[in-house]
């Protein structure tokens, strides 16, 4: 999935708003320091580990580290924060050279992170809200913006009015952020009404399918329901299935987060799922690794890096062939091609490792 | 106890029973199966609550709501079902002092050393050789019964109830128990003793109460009655011929066992059973009869030796193979092994013959019902209908069900292991009639029992088993009760 990272799409450099250091620090360190960057052992401490999104993210991390000649150990936590804290402690004990954190939690990890800092282990986190701890670079996917993108598109395509179904569940930080946008959206468009809301994280796809079927039966007339907004792609898959199988093709589905699997469904012209917003999971991994290597190199890295979400609509996708997220950058500007965090010496490192 | 009544699910088990015991007497409580003896005693010991009636002890009226209430009043009980009162995976010591541990007044902290010492003392006083640290699950049935008696004697009781304590005990052990009972009596303790063995009842007890159908029929001093009178009172009629023996022609051998060894208790058994022949195997408890029957039925693995049915050598790796070879077993522990208490009589009776009443695997409900109704009327099973749940039948009728299920298989050999254990005289006679009929049909019968009189009355041949092998064979009429006892205990004494 990372095969075309080099195809540096010019339009994608814009998002890195507050990271001047990313390119600035690409000063000409000698190749000896490039040598010293090889053979790093890196721990990836994750909270979730199922689903295609996570799998692609892990893939991104692994491939990028491999390009730098390092090795990754994944410490997965089954969505259990106490296990995640234990995993972080264990990573510190094992004296990894660097630690990547995925979907962490400030309260749960503060202790472990302080230990890591004390042990001099650099940390880069993704979507963890660790900004209050000094010295950690936080990558953040702007969840509110993700939600806004899809909701605005929904409003636009619906003409600012209609009945919608929300599939959402609380209890997860990204979900709760997305809810904030949703609330604002409902206030902004008084003519858009929520007629049903449900969601179950433990059985996302089938449960959504079954429950949406009930809602469809409750509103049997075409036009009763304008759209379904799914705050998570796992919900969107179930929603799309239910609508498709019920033959209610007038209802559109808008989702958030995009994996290869989802892309397939969005491309399918018979699928009601028309749009999603996401940050490419693979490039999240890639960028996170780059910043970690900047830290290895002793660069001053910014405390916060915003990963700008990309909006993917079916209209932008090719009709004649099936693509994967790896090819998506050709059609959707800003996707998968982020050169964020890259530096000259890192490129050098890549070629040096690749040469062997 | 006065005017005690108790019903189970609307069916009366006790109807206004009056009963009293005095301190320092042994009072026998007799009655046919299901007469309500155990139920009455369970009410006295607080295991059941009475529906009506009143209990007085030491002049004070009590409402026993739980076993601890009646224990507080000094009433202790050894229940008929031994395993219900023991905790298998705990030590003998703990089982002996279970009541103390259970009592809210006991010590909060447990000293294991002291507990074992005290248990040793109790066991020694009774002359029992059981290690207090053994787990009860590793004991034999009679040892378990003795542990319960030890528990009793560790208590300061005013009244003691023994519900069929002698059923699993050997003669020696029974003697030991009687010694203990006499001791209790001379300490001024009132003993209630339930047994189906009339001779021992007549020997040990001071007064006798007979119950029938949930009512008290009579209470007399021992001297005022003989065993005939008791039987008459129990059944409501006289019981002329105790063991009716039907004559049958004896034919070819159907079961031939040679040098059979299985487990620790069957050590080289040779025997032969012929068509129409009733062969009794007698022996004391622990002689290995049950193990022999289980080995013959494939229920336990056979270590060495051969078994042939109708001259054909039979491979007995499982009961299913034994059934195919033509052997049927009526096991000793009926509720655990013989019947399905939660299922209907109908389903119980058809288990071994499901193949016969089905075609291509589909059961014929009609044939199943016909079969059941036939057995119910032939064997005189007392049940409200074939669909009655077996749990609600009395013990004797449950035993008839356990026998009845085999009658329509084409078994050639029937093995009965203590089929009359805990069965009243009426049901016993029915069972003997069934066995006699089977013999007349040319079946071979192997009848294992520790009741020598039954063997003497019923069998064509009697084999005496001792410590895992057959030590003597008698033809009908050759042996007396004493002969059997001599051989049954001989080897054991030699070894000792």
């Amino acid at each position: 999935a990372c095969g075309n990272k080099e195809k540096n799409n010019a339009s994608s450099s814009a998002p890195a708003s507050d990271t001047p250091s990313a390119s600035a620090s690409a000063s000409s360190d000698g190749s000896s320091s490039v040598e010293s960057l090889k053979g790093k052992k890196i721990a990836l401490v994750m909270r979730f580990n199922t689903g295609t999104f996570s799998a692609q993210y892990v893939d991104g991390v692994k491939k990028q580290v491999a390009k730098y000649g390092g090795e990754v150990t994944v410490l997965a936590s089954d969505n259990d924060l106490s296990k995640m804290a234990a995993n972080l402690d264990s990573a510190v004990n094992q004296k990894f050279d660097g630690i990547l954190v995925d979907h962490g939690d400030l309260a749960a990890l503060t202790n472990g992170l302080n230990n890591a800092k004390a042990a001099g282990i650099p940390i880069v986190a993704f979507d963890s809200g660790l900004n209050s701890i000094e010295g950690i670079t936080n990558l953040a996917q702007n969840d509110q913006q993700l939600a806004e993108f899809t909701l605005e598109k929904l409003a636009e395509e619906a003409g600012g009015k209609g009945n919608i179904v929300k599939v959402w569940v609380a209890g997860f930080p990204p979900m709760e952020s997305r809810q904030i946008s949703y609330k604002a959206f409902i206030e902004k468009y008084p003519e858009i009404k929520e007629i049903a809301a449900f969601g179950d994280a433990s059985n996302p796809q089938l449960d959504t399918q079954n429950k949406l079927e009930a809602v469809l039966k409750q509103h049997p007339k075409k036009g009763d329901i304008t759209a379904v907004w799914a705050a998570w792609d796992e919900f969107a898959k179930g929603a799309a299935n239910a609508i498709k199988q019920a033959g209610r093709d007038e209802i559109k589905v808008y989702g958030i987060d995009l994996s290869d699997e989802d892309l397939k469904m969005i491309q399918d012209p018979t699928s009601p799922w028309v749009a999603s917003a996401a940050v490419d999971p693979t490039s999240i991994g890639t960028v996170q690794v780059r910043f970690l290597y900047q830290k290895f190199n002793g660069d001053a890295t910014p405390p916060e890096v915003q990963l700008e979400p990309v909006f993917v609509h079916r209209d932008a996708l090719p009709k004649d062939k099936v693509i994967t997220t790896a090819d998506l950058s050709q059609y959707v500007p800003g996707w998968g091609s982020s050169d964020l965090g890259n530096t000259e010496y890192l490129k050098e490192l890549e070629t040096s490792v690749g040469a062997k | 106890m006065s005017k005690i009544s108790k019903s189970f699910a609307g069916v009366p088990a006790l109807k206004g029973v009056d009963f009293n015991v005095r301190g320092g007497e042994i009072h026998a409580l007799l009655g046919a199966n299901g007469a309500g003896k155990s139920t009455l005693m369970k009410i006295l010991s607080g295991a059941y609550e009475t529906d009506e009636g009143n209990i007085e002890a030491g002049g004070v009226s009590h409402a026993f709501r739980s076993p601890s209430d009646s224990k507080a009043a000094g009433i202790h009980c050894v229940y008929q079902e031994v395993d219900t009162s023991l905790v298998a995976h705990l030590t003998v010591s703990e089982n002996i002092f279970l009541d103390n541990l259970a009592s809210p007044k006991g010590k909060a902290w447990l000293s294991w050393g002291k507990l074992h010492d005290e248990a040793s003392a109790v066991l020694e006083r009774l002359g029992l050789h059981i290690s207090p640290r053994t787990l009860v699950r590793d004991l034999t049935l009679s040892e378990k019964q003795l542990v319960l008696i030890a528990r009793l004697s560790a208590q300061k009781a005013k009244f003691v109830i023994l519900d069929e304590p002698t059923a699993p005990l050997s003669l020696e052990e029974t003697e030991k128990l009687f010694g203990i009972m006499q001791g209790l009596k001379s300490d001024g303790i009132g003993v209630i003793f339930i047994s189906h063995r009339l001779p021992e009842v007549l020997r040990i007890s001071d007064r006798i109460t007979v119950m029938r159908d949930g009512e008290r029929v009579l209470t007399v001093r021992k001297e005022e009655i003989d065993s005939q009178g008791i039987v008459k009172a129990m059944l409501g009629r006289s019981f002329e011929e105790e063991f009716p023996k039907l004559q049958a022609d004896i034919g070819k051998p159907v079961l031939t066992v040679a040098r059979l060894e299985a487990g620790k208790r069957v050590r080289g058994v040779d025997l032969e059973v012929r068509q129409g022949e009733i062969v009794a195997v007698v022996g004391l408890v622990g002689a290995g009869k049950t193990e022999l029957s289980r080995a013959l039925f494939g229920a336990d693995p056979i270590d060495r030796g051969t078994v042939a049915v109708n001259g054909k050598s039979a491979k007995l790796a499982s009961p299913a193979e034994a059934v195919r070879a033509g052997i049927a077993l009526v096991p000793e522990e009926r509720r655990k092994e013989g019947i399905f208490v939660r299922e209907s009589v109908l389903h119980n009776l058809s288990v071994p013959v499901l193949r016969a009443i089905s075609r291509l695997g589909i059961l014929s409900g009609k044939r199943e019902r016909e079969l059941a109704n036939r057995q119910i009327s032939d064997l005189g099973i007392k049940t409200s209908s074939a669909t009655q749940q077996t749990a609600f039948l009395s013990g004797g009728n449950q035993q008839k069900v356990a026998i009845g299920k085999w009658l329509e298989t084409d078994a050639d050999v029937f093995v009965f292991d203590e089929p009359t254990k805990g069965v009243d005289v009426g049901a016993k006679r029915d069972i003997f009639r069934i066995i006699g009929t089977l013999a007349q049909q040319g079946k071979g019968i192997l009848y294992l029992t520790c009741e020598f009189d039954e063997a003497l009355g019923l069998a064509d041949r009697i084999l005496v088993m001792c410590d895992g092998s057959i030590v003597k064979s008698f033809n009908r009429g050759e042996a007396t009760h004493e002969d059997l006892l001599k051989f049954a205990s001989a080897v054991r004494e030699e070894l000792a």
Partner: protein
Amino acid sequence: MRKHLLPFSFKYGALLFIGLVILFFSLYNQYFFTYSNLTDILRSISIVTFVAIGVTISLLVDGFDLSVSATVSLSTVITASLMVWYEMPLVVVLIVPIAVGALIGLINSLLIVKIRIPDLLATLSVMYLVNGIHKNYTAGYSVYSHMPMPDGSTAPGEMSKAFLWIGQGKLLGIPFPVVLMVVAVAAVHVFFKYTRWGRQMIMTGGNEEAARLSGVKVKKIRMYAYVASGIFASIGGILFASRIGSGQIDAGAPMLMESVAAVFVGYSVFAAGRPNIIGTFFGAILMGVLVNGLTMMNVKYYQTDIVKGLVLIVALAVTFIHLNRRKA
């Protein structure tokens, strides 16, 4: 005969309750009691019902199969991968997961019957094992048509139309999974009520030792029960894949608790107080009706669990109060 005196209200109480629930939802929402919604409900419970049949069978021989959820997950990804990765014909796609389900049942029964590990312990261990295997098989990815493979290529196959029809198609206007489910329930019910082997299973569950001493091959019987349980769970997995059109990781995880809930509600049906297939079916229906109806009422998602719990408690309480009163 007690049985005939059994108060009507107890014997048919559970059914009455289901009826009342349906009536309530029908009055509340005009669209609830429509042919298409009712068939939707039945379709929505079809997967759980298959799993629950397996659980019922294991309970009937006095065991308990906790590994069913893992079997569903494994069967789902195997089914999908056979089409997507290997482009196998439909027969193979259907037979292989069923064989795998049977194999899991065999492993369970080996542990339980041969090594004599208690049922709960054995099937829990197998649950862990199979859960690990299914994730390992796909390296944590879900399986879907033309998915990208780890080596960068694209998977050659896709979920076949014929296969998807199993979960999504209709036969004479009835969703096919519903047809399958009803046939399965009827067949299993007949099996237990009218066949020799079914009766032997029930007797084995009632008293294993007595069954053995009656000549029933109890080890085999228990083995068959676990194999059947594995097979029904794997059919559940196949239906799952065909219903959602892909093989999701951990798809079966919620199935254990849901199917067990259906089975336990089933204890109340006809006041049986024990596992029974018809009860299980009605248990699944009740759960399906509740989810559908409560969704239509727009009850918050976190409140449906409370309702489910209360319904279970009430159903069981009524049944057991009654059964125990009868016994005492």
